[in-house]
């Protein structure tokens, strides 16, 4: 490539060849880097630098106050003997496995409803998108917890239909479900992406199928779903990665101990607790890298399965 490029340029009509162009181009390059410099600095100093530091720290015993001490793979080995670490992996995995499908299904359902033209469509879209604007806010988590305490709205409503669970915030069997619902309620982002995907589904296909006598469900299964499968895949990927990193809402509801009875001890919460309450930064760094590794593997796995079910129009299949 490098040898071809200059010849091409020289051949280009109306372009003066030779060193002058070169100087100008390199000048453009500098200007480009200059404009990029805030971003470059950001990624170097605020992302890559800390990441490399944390990779180094993950092999050390580091208490924040004293210099880090090299311990090799100790932190990583210790994790597998740490009952709380295993617990946090379990809680997080269950959460991801339940919360992601629930949220995506809800987002898709809402998107399908909002896809039809009707009065006040803009209002409904805004109303459903609203909750995700206040996303990971502390106040929202506090309100959510209050809704799910003894004698609060949810408890009373459930009692009307004969379900006696008490406040979910204090019930280890329901505390995680409460957070799943909080996640699902904030379905705005995947919903908007689904909506965009639905707009791309050709109307002709639906019309043709309709003429052939296909019902609503059949059309959804055989036309809509395959046509939006890339969007489903994109949302699935994004939500999976996000769900592994849930923190704020869980911290507000369950605190650093994952109350009640450790059922909301998310991976990130345990990581934070180890690092900032117990001053075990080395261990916390190792945990962070394990999380990255785990999420990376799962993403890879999702990409593998995608070959089987994601359909890109233009594919010969």
């Amino acid at each position, binding site marked *: 490539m490098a040898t071809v490029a200059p010849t091409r340029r020289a051949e280009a009509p109306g372009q003066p060849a030779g060193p002058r162009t070169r100087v100008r181009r390199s000048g453009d390059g500098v200007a480009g880097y200059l404009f990029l410099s805030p971003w470059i600095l950001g990624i170097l100093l605020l992302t890559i630098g800390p990441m490399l530091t944390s990779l180094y720290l993950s092999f050390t015993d580091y208490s924040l106050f004293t210099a880090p001490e090299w311990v090799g793979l100790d932190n990583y080995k210790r994790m597998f003997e740490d009952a709380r670490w295993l617990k946090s992996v379990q809680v997080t995995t269950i959460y991801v496995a339940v919360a992601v499908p629930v949220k995506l299904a809800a987002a898709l359902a809402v998107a399908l409803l909002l896809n039809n033209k009707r009065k006040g469509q803009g209002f409904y879209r805004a109303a459903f998108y609203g909750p995700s604007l206040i996303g990971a806010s502390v106040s929202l988590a506090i309100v959510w917890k209050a809704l799910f305490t003894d004698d609060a709205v949810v408890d009373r409503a459930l009692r009307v239909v004969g379900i006696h669970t008490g*406040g979910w915030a*204090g019930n*280890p069997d329901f505390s995680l479900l409460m957070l799943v619902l909080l996640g699902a309620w904030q379905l705005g982002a995947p919903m908007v992406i689904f909506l965009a995907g639905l707009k791309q589904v050709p109307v002709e296909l639906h019309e043709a199928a309709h003429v052939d006598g296909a019902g609503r469900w059949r059309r959804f299964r055989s036309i809509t779903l395959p046509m939006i499968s890339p969007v489903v895949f994109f949302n699935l990927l994004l939500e999976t990665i996000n769900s592994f990193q849930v923190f704020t809402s869980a911290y507000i509801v369950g605190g650093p101990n994952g*109350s009640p009875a450790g059922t909301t001890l998310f991976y990130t919460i345990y990581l934070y607790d180890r690092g900032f309450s117990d*001053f075990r930064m080395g261990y916390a760094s190792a945990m962070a890298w394990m999380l990255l590794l785990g999420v990376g593997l799962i993403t890879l796995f999702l990409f593998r399965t995608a070959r089987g079910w994601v359909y890109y129009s233009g594919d010969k299949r």
Partner: protein
Amino acid sequence: MGVMKRFTTVLAAVSLVFAGAACGGDDEAESGPVTLRYSWWGNADRAALVQKAIDLFQTKNPNIKVTPSFQEFEAYWQKMATDTAGGNAPDVLQMDFAYLREYAERGVLYDLKKQEGENLNTGDLLEGLKGAGEVDGGLYAVPVAGNTWGYVYSPAAYSKAGVPEPKLGWTWNDYRAAMEKITKSTGGKMYGGGNYIGTYYNLEVQLRQEGKLLYTEDGKLGFDKPRLAKFFNEGKQLADAKIVLPVEKGVQIKPKFALEMDLIAGDLGWDNFMTRYAAATKTELKLGPVPSDNPAQLGQYLKPSMLMSVSAKSKHPEESAKLIDFFINDPGAGEILGANRGIPATNGQRAAVKLEGPFAAVAAYEESIKTQLEKAPPAPPKGAGTIEQAFIRISEELQYGRISVDQAVDQFFTEANETLES
């Protein structure tokens, strides 16, 4: 050449950005008055009082300016750890007994012995608090207030249930019986007690009544597995019989206290919390003695509820020492702060403070058991805060019935020993 030129241009751009960023603070160096940064934990109520005290200090020391900042307890320590690690610790910081050794042994605190007798006078400290800020011969913190274990209760709840009010000499069995009677008489509308089993200091006071300690002098656990199993078993029985506030309720009301919400008739706790409860509820509350099976031994001591330290990196140790001296000795400061942080730590301030209502109750309570108070134990070992958290967490799982007493005991010892060894 071209590469070099490009490189220098980028470098120039980078340094420009840095110069811009650095233009912020740090212009105090040459100007007249010294600025001290002072961090503490507490809530907005306390902030108003602290600010008043600081104003008074600044009028008395016009060449010193104090910029305070505060968080809630947990957030405070998280921020303090990061600030300290980043070399950005405040000049003066509030210290907790449980963290004192952690910070002192890591060399991040200034030895105040160097200021003693010059800018700092600790001679007037209460007998029980003298030496409480020392670690391995150095003075790394000065107590500004003290508190002790006590029993806060509602006399109305007691009389309604027909239970005599607690008085000196009541035993742990009396305490459990009283709780049971109160809970039964209200039909479970009000509970006799709070989170008995999840309160680490209930165990400590029992150990001390038996002549043992929570942590030995050399920083190990001062009790064995059977002793902890006994404590857990007693507590578990209370929880299972629903005599004390059920754990699911306790979890839901956090960060509030059950006494603030009239959910329980009384609870053991630090005596200065009386003032917090009293501010939140209309129910009349009283302070009574801690139960003991050994009448001659209450197992109590005056604990420094709050201390003040100076960062080893502070450029103004003299002025910092002056600020601490002001907080412990100045009668005006004592008057402003009252018993908000616990009863003042010096005789002079105790005399200066005009206490009313719940504050007076706390002072009277401490006065009533004055002769029984022992010397404070040495500052707890590194990781004591982590161990207390483990205790709270494990006892919660125990109350939920997720683990058995034996499992809880094993888990606690595994975690505590691992923390103490690291």
